[in-house]
């Protein structure tokens, strides 16, 4: 089932085309890696699809009101700027409360939804930890849990593996794989070609705002293609 669809979606910033017209769709249970060199437009493409920046062309999320969009796709931002040092449980509770206020057919309580999500993410012991005391990997897991408690069929993640050690990266990837097994779709920007080959079901390669390859990781991320994807602009 197609969850997110774009047709000729493009982004123009200060008269410069950052994203060339892109048509793509993401279906249920897919684990899609968005790869490309720094500045290739990965984050901009995600932000345009999330309706966080103006764009041209069609995206099935565009016409939906914010509440309906929030029920379709969640977002794990690369921004880790914590101003108020709340606990992991508080972080999840705010999102769960919003969801329960907006959705008509929800089961259980906010507290149960938060606890189930913490358990699913393997971080039940972090519930009363303050965000500023978490390690990079723990914070990433908490932020993914925050997105998961939103209970959307699709989750976008911007550089979820950035600044994590190899063990933490595997933990995050295992969590993403479990999400996909539960029918959720994941679109994540990552730089690690070897991990993308191992864990993801599909790779979108972006270069200068254009998708230059879309397919199975083992084919798209062959060694001789990496030069084209990550090579000089």
């Amino acid at each position, binding site marked *: 089932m197609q969850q997110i669809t774009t047709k000729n979606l493009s982004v123009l910033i200060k008269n410069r085309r950052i994203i060339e017209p892109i048509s793509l769709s993401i279906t249920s249970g897919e684990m899609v890696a968005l790869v490309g060199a720094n500045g290739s437009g990965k984050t901009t493409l995600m932000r345009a699809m999330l309706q966080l920046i103006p764009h041209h062309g069609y995206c099935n999320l565009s016409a939906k009101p914010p509440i309906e969009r*929030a029920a379709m796709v*969640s977002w794990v*931002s690369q*921004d880790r700027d914590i101003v*108020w040092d709340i606990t992991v449980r508080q972080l999840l509770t705010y999102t769960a409360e*919003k969801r329960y*206020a907006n959705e008509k057919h929800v089961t259980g309580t906010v507290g149960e939804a938060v606890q189930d999500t913490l358990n699913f993410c393997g971080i039940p012991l972090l519930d009363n930890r303050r965000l500023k005391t978490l390690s990079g990997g723990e914070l990433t897991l908490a932020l993914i849990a925050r997105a998961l408690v939103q209970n959307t069929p699709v989750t976008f993640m911007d550089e979820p593996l950035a600044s994590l050690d190899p063990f933490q990266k595997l933990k995050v990837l295992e969590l993403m794989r479990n999400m996909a097994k539960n029918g959720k779709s994941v679109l994540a920007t990552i730089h690690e070609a070897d991990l993308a080959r191992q864990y993801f079901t599909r790779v979108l390669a972006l270069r200068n705002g254009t998708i230059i390859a879309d397919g199975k990781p083992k084919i798209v991320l062959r060694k001789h293609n990496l030069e084209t994807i990550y090579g000089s602009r």
Partner: protein
Amino acid sequence: MFRNDAIIITIIHGLVLAAFAISLKIGPVPVSLIDALATVTHPVWDTNTIIVWDLRLPRSVMCTLVGGALALAGAALQSFLRNPLAEPSIVGISSTAALGAVISIASGFHAFGALSTPSLAFVGGLAGGIVLASAAYRIKNTNNLILVGVGISSISGAITSLILSLSDNPFAINEIVFWMLGSLTDVSLFHTATVAPFVIIGGALLLGCRRDLNLLSLGGDTAATIGVVMNSLKYRVVIGTALTVSAVTATVGIIGFIGLMTPHIARPLARNEPGKTLAYSVPIGALIVLLADIAVRLTPTVGEMKLGVFTALLGTPFFLYLIKRQSG
């Protein structure tokens, strides 16, 4: 967690009630606490009743309104701008309200009645709020919104200084300076009745933003993907702040530091939750202003010390202490 909240709220409100009662007692003419409370509950037409009803009760009610309003606006701005240094004066609303008052006094408009200066000050504050709201429409980055506020504050401060320097009326200059120092000396029940609706409407608007401000903990973009309509939130915060701060500043002048300081006291009690910080800031702000006003009345100075001066004198070292404690 719920029980702890109930205990904290009960204690704070108990302290506010106690401070309110004591503020009815304190003044140049001694009135016992029991007599003061009796005149409020069973007014009999005697000297005590006149003192309490005409002088002390309006002042205590105004303290509660001013403290609650400034603290709430400060907490809302800090949460919305995700900046612990934000406060009503930093976004320019206090200074445009002051400019309105200065124009009223310098032009002689204040001679038209007791409400003439507060009216112009209120118009000034709202004008500042409208400029800020229209800038907010175009600006996405909240840091830039603070810069616009600083700009509004600077230009209104410059015009205020220009009016002061060009005024050839020493009485007007004197009145302007005293007004700007902030005081609750001459407030009446009529003033409190005029201010209260704006504080209640603006306060309700701000308190209604609590859930969205919680979601803003992770930044505007993440909040937007959870269903927060950022433009709507921006307008509610700006309009709520403009209504509450303009109304109180128009009546009592500039009372500094309450909007900045109170959320920092409320936040640890609210376990850093932005929405709860708003709710806790209201009674804590009221308590601080009530206590400050009692202290002003008890301080042995020749004339009564201005409340705005007192809050700044006490607020600055306390604020520096808070910063030191929070930075470990």
